[in-house]
């Protein structure tokens, strides 16, 4: 028995020592930081970052694409502080979106809203309200927040493949403080996911090794034990949705119906940017939302203004074969894609001017 305990103690000592060394190494490396979120409360009705907090982005196991950024006075990744509607003279273009708008992996100057601000000059302010993990329901809540605080003249909403599929409560990961569509017999309503105790998360965020495993390596026990991996061309891990199509349709109807009221703008002042299925362009399995075509059609019938990146990306790919992201490792838009988004957006805005 003594020998057994001694051996277990040796094993534990070896494991703990190694963990400490690994933690020490991770601390000197540019491991991705955890987003310094601000709790949602009566004062802060929407999920965003701590004002003026700093963030470090790196991706993959070898810590590529390092970007450091700072949140502005409103807790959004943007080098410019935002002025409220009372203290601002220029009309405002507000951009709402998820991590595609937060763009932690890019310099501000590379983003489509950074480019747009540059091209529009002082005549208009362009504020970005991008938040990692946001979904279509959160966009509605964000639109209300933006309306009340900043009163934009134009609203741009970036819609990506996961935005509707991750928006229905009970069919998506329950991200604390995030809004979801709750679909019941009485209809659709917005529902904010309850906050959980942050104690464990705070401890977790303190460990660089834990952040490396979770954020850089994107540990996913489920897919680790999935079917055999391809021996051919590398393919991004597929994102699957378990949400029934009729629920997604309900969410889409609700979103398109409520967005004007939430934003305080008529539909012709709202631009919906729909991402394209870039993986398919590369000849890889689709990473798009199968319902995107019908959502776009419905939005167009509702007289929203639309930027269809499916067409823009396809045409550009045909001509230049330049990737729009870092597929298969990182599927967010790169600077090249952001330039195309801005070009398409400017074209649409000028058509309407």
């Amino acid at each position, binding site marked *: 028995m003594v020998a057994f305990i001694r051996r277990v103690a040796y*094993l534990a000592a*070896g*494991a703990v*020592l*190694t963990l400490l060394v*690994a933690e020490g190494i991770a601390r000197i490396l540019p491991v991705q930081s955890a987003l310094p979120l601000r709790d949602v409360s009566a004062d802060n009705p929407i999920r965003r970052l701590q004002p003026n907090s700093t963030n470090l982005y790196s991706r*993959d196991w070898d810590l590529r694409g390092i970007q450091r950024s700072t949140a502005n006075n409103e807790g959004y990744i943007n080098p410019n502080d935002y002025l409220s509607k009372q203290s601002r003279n220029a009309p405002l273009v507000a951009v709402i979106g998820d991590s595609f708008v937060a763009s932690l992996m890019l310099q501000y100057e590379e983003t489509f809203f950074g480019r747009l601000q540059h091209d529009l000059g002082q005549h208009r302010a362009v504020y970005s309200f991008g938040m990692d993990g946001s979904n279509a329901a959160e966009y509605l809540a964000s639109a209300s927040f933006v309306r009340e605080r900043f009163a934009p003249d134009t609203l741009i909403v970036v819609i990506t493949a996961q935005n509707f599929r991750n928006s229905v409560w009970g069919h998506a990961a329950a991200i604390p403080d995030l809004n979801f569509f709750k679909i019941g017999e009485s209809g659709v309503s917005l529902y904010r996911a309850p906050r959980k105790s942050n104690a464990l998360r705070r401890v977790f965020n303190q460990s660089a090794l834990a952040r490396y495993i979770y954020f850089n*390596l994107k540990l996913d026990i489920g*897919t*680790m034990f999935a079917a055999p991996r391809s021996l051919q061309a590398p393919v991004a891990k597929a994102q699957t949705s378990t949400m029934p199509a009729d629920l997604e349709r309900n969410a889409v109807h609700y979103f398109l119906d409520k967005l004007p009221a939430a934003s305080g703008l008529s539909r012709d002042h709202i631009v919906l940017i729909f991402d394209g299925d870039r993986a398919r362009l590369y000849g890889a399995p689709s990473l798009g939302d199968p319902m995107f075509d019908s959502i776009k059609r419905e939005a167009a019938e509702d007289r929203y203004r639309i930027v269809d990146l499916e067409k823009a990306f396809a045409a550009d790919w045909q001509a230049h074969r330049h990737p729009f992201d870092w597929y298969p490792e990182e599927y967010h838009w790169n600077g090249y894609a952001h330039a195309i988004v801005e070009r398409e957006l400017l074209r649409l805005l000028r058509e309407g001017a």
Partner: protein
Amino acid sequence: MLFTSAIFVFAYLPVTFAVFFIIGRINRVAAAAWLAAASIFFYGWWDYHYVPLLAVSIVFNFAMSRQIAAAQEPTRRKLLLAVAVAAALGLLAYFKYKNFLLSVVTDQPLAALGHLVIPLGISFYTFTQIAFLVDTYRREAHEPSFVHYVLFVTYFPHLIAGPIIHHKEMMPQFRDPSTYSPKLSDFNEGAMFFVIGLFKKVVIADGVAPFADALFGAAGNGHPIGLAASWSGALAYTAQIYFDFSGYSDMAIGLSLLFGIRLPLNFASPYQSANIIEFWRRWHMTLSRFLRDYLYISLGGNRKGPARRYLNLFLTMLLGGLWHGAGWTFVIWGALHGTYLMVNHGWHALSRAARNRPPKPSYVGRFASWLVTFLAVVVAWVFFRADTVTSAGAIVGAMFGFGGFDLTAHTLSNALATAEFWWIVIPLALALLAPNSQDIVARASAYLRAASAARREAFAFVSLGAIAVIVPLCVVIAESKASPVFIYFNF
């Protein structure tokens, strides 16, 4: 199933290991049969469609070896061997070289014939079995146990990408009763080999791979290539292939040691070689051994005069190149190494003739010799890695200044600031200066042997604790990658 995958490390390996030693206490043949069955399952995990092909190949070759062993008449023995070897090579030719042969015969570009799916490990299990057949013919091998033969061919640590094993070193271990009892020393040594291999592959080889891929991708797309880019990409691939393949071999050796079975070593710091003859004694050693014993010697070796010896050397390397893949790039890679070997042997012959003794170079001479050898190997790797002869030619041309000598944008201070520089320099420095896996494990084992029992126990269990953290961490890193496969899976 990849050695670096979670399903392998956390499910397949523990189950196979535990059941093997549990059955081994009761019945050794049943334990060997279990290991063979588990190996076939391992093979079928990717694509079960090729399991019948493997099974047919094993049954046919075992039956033929029995026929050859039983035959008394030399002509009949020779005929049986010829039929068996022709069938094995025919199978390989059909699955691996069909498109290449078609492109040669019909003069169509290889790419136009579409992508050929090659059954995993076919080159390795074909060679293993041909060696067995030839040795049976030479009366150097005889295996009455079908279970041991199946295990010999399918044994999962070597099945997909070697090391190419020889029956002489495997069959006695399968018959040895002590193999079927777990030993802490073997487990420790195996775990060390496995961790070193895992680190080589997951961290070093995969870390340097993007820099090699960038060069060969650009060349494949017809982009212009500069002097610095061509050298950095070629050196990156030189590091990548060594750490990828030697990492795989270390993992295979380590896994096998967990089961108490020693596989032959496959690498011995090849980039430290001072000449190309030495390189081939240190690089993919089990393939070199196979080519020497079953091809070079069969062609006549050095028994038919110097001219024929050089021709045999060249042909052996040419066919060795073709074994790696069905394409002109591999043929050129083999031809280059064949030429290198001819020049090296010729140089030695001239030196011996001039001085009447083998050459003994000075430190400067040895350094120059190492440098020439290393650069020759780097140039040859370009053909090995490139998709087409055209892109390989473009890269080699750029390496020799045909793309210009402009290095103004590539000052040392600029280079030092890039991740690329360090990702290439550090692995190459490790390959050139650090002790290799077997040296590290041997030193640790020697320390353990000399230590007291208490210290031995402490070292064994503390290191197992460390391994219990490092292995899952490396597995999670490997699983995070979009393309975690080994280079030699293509061959």
